[in-house]
């Protein structure tokens, strides 16, 4: 069985936000809910700005699973962590339990205050997000099941991300895997999302995430 993950080479990331909006178009998440985030880290010492995509880590040891009183969160055999939208009651325990701060509860509001675009009425299940349900990146499981990559990976203009089976020695994700690091590895979450950091920035990126993992936009 595969064990899916994403590797980011941050030497190539420009913070262009394509992954953020490609995800919006693919999954139609509600206002303020970003499954894909792009955070930035300014490093005066290095004279550069580091941008990094940031989303559900699809942990091998996901704290959200145990935290859910409804047992709505589960890890599939291929490692993808999903929230069962039927079972979820929106208690928000997973939001608190996730050390990465990448789970949201869907708000009431939508983008056009009821005058929704016509395509929303005929949207597929993965594009429906009832208010009050917990919501996070599904790794585009609906695409993976059709043999495609997650939208953010496929659409990245700078080819920052590599998607693949971490256990498959032939997967392209393995090429740079030895150089990559996990965020908050000390929490024991065993994330399947990893990063190749520009020199001397891994600690600073981690501090940046600890300080505020949200994509607060002015």
């Amino acid at each position, binding site marked *: 069985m595969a064990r899916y993950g994403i590797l980011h080479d941050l030497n190539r990331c*420009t913070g*262009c936000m394509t992954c953020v909006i*490609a995800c919006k*178009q693919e999954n139609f998440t509600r206002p303020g809910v970003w499954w894909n985030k792009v955070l930035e880290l300014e490093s005066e010492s290095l004279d550069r*700005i580091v941008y990094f995509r940031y989303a559900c880590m699809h942990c091998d040891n996901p704290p959200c699973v145990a935290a859910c009183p409804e047992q709505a969160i589960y890890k599939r055999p291929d490692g993808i962590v999903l929230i069962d939208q039927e079972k979820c009651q929106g208690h928000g325990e997973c939001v608190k339990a996730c050390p990465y701060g990448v789970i949201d509860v869907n708000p009431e509001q939508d983008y056009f205050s009821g005058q929704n*675009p016509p395509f929303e009425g005929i949207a597929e299940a993965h594009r429906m997000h009832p208010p009050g349900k917990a919501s996070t990146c599904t790794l585009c499981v609906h695409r993976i099941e059709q043999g495609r990559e997650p939208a953010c990976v*496929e659409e990245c203009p700078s*080819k920052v991300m590599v998607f693949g089976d971490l256990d498959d020695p032939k997967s392209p994700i393995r090429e740079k895997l030895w150089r990559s690091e996990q965020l908050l590895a000390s929490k024991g979450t065993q994330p399947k999302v990893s990063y190749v950091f520009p020199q001397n920035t891994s600690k600073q990126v981690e501090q940046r995430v600890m300080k505020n993992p949200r994509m607060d*936009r*002015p």
Partner: protein
Amino acid sequence: MASDKDKVDKESFARTQTGVAEAEEETEGYTFCDGCNEVPFCGIKFYRRGDVVTRIEPWPGFPASPLCSKAYATLQRLYHPDRLKYPMKRTHPKGSSDPGYVRISWDEAYDMIVGHLNRIKKEYSPHAVFFYVGDPKEPRAAVQRLAATYGSVSYGCESSTACRRAAQLAEFLTYGFPTMGDLPTEETKSMLIWGTNPAYSGQPFLCHGRLADAKERGVKFIVVDPRITPTASTLADIHLQPRPATTAALAAGIMHVIFEEGLEDREFCEKWIHGIDELRDYVKDYTPEKVEKITWVPAKRIVDAARLYATHRPGAFLTGAQGTTHDLNATNNHRAILMIPAICGHIDIPGGLPKPTEPLVEMDGPWADGPPKFCMRDKMKGMREHRLDLEAFPAWAEKLFEIQTNHLVEWIKEGKVKAFLGWGFNTMIWPQTHEYQQAIGSLDFAMAVDYFYRPQTHDYVDLVLPAAMNYERLAPFAFFGRQVFGRTPVKPLGECKEDWQIALEIGVRLGHPETFFNGDVEAACNDILGLWNISYEDLRKNQVNGIGIPAKGPALYRKYETGDMRPDKKKGFNTPSGKIEAVSLILEKYGYPGLPEYKEPMETTSEYPLILISGSRVPYITHSKWRGDSPWLLELQRDPLLTINPEDAAKRDIRTGDEVFLKTAYGQMRVKAKPTIMVPPGVVGIMHGWAKANVNELIPRQFDPISGFPPYKEVVCEVVKA
């Protein structure tokens, strides 16, 4: 207006909802993105049920791919409840706080337009009607044909206001061909990127990913940009951060080192550069130490950059449309940069700065500008003596067919322009915007075609026409080099019409049904495609892969040695001297200095100690577009943000998100501050095109004497906490 508009929206949405209910099968469609006003376009494959577009993805195998955030947002924009869906005319006099727009029929709209055009032609002159295309560029060909047929030489566009044309003029004057450089190839050893941030502004086929690949192959990068852009952060081996508007001095400093150390391509210089001795003499004074004082770039870095670029051969080159031309020395600043690859001998060699071999002669330039035959450019040239910019900008008027528009205010005041027909135009492009708004508001007649009601422009016109969006347009088709692609539109919402159709129908009603194909857009496209014996139907048959127009042979290099550089097939470059012109004979002819001289920009003072740069892009906004057009994108940035170096912010007790006043001698505005190292100390930056904080009101109506470009990246300013 509000109640009328609400009614319209509800009707329209009822209609689209019905469309969904009736639709059964999901089918595929293809179109292009107009999100950033680049042409050629990026390709979108979409899925539709009936006339409802449901989802989109990159067009597989398309030359410009993948898509960016703006392209994905075109789907949300398509169904924005605020879209214009019907023609509207003003009912209150101009200058009223509420224009009182009411819905009218297309017939009434066309009658208004044609009535004014016929009257103005009779009472004044056809040249008193100004035809303008802003963003998107798509309607340019059709609008030029309309202007020419009507008999007006007065055609301009955003490129001939503030975007590409100043750099292009510099390229024509210097090289004799237009170029923004090219991507590095397998042969390339070094890359000079000057004043552009392709990570945010580049077409995906020129995208950052390809540059990042070159970096991984070992190509050495020099990036020149005052800001720490992602392009600089991810690519630069040497990053030069000059003081804004000191370009010609920095270029002179680099050339000084190259000549001083004998690193130039001596044979190329002697044989192919006109004025090489004058250039050598001129840059002698520009020692790295002197240039450091002028530009703030450390002398050692200037030396390192010069050595790297001259010795890692071939060196490629990439510059932007306008990053280097938004100051009062625009043309010469850009000409100075162009001389660097020239003295290194990097011109038209593999892996350097090539001139494309055999571009389509029928096109005579980029597709965006329109094919000359269809645009009736000969007729336009024949009316040259009536050009309004002939006296103020003679070198421009000799080399470029569009009118330089920045003197529009004066022309309207002097009664030389009586009407303005604009497709996708926005007054915020002009410095001291309110002067242009008032001038346009004082015209006999002004018309705008757009997707949304944009008060900063449409409050000043008489008629607003609803444009079909990218999923609803047939024209134009797309060209990439020699590959041509068509699209498969859905039915437009409401009564929207595509830009071309509007131009063609005006032409028909002016009394030229045959010239305007009886209003048939496909027939107009076929008129152009017929140049290569193909039709739109052929494009449909080859929908995904398009049709290639075969080249006669392989790519050629050093074409100046073979006669393939000039239309008359003589050896050399297509300039008056037949050489690259360090000393421009055309500029000398009109009394300008011939060398690309440095001119000291506006000086900072104790009152205005900072330099303001605007016009640089963020990746999810283009000019005045987007913002609310797609809430997905608006969520990424709701307000204009003034970037200021943390050092300058601390001095003024400014923290992230603080409200500040940005002041110049010409105006002030209130915005939020974002302290960031992206801008160096002494420089602040802000995105243009925000209606609620239009930075161009802070820019004076002063212009580069050669190109007429305004100083968007030069004006001195101060920032104070609100």
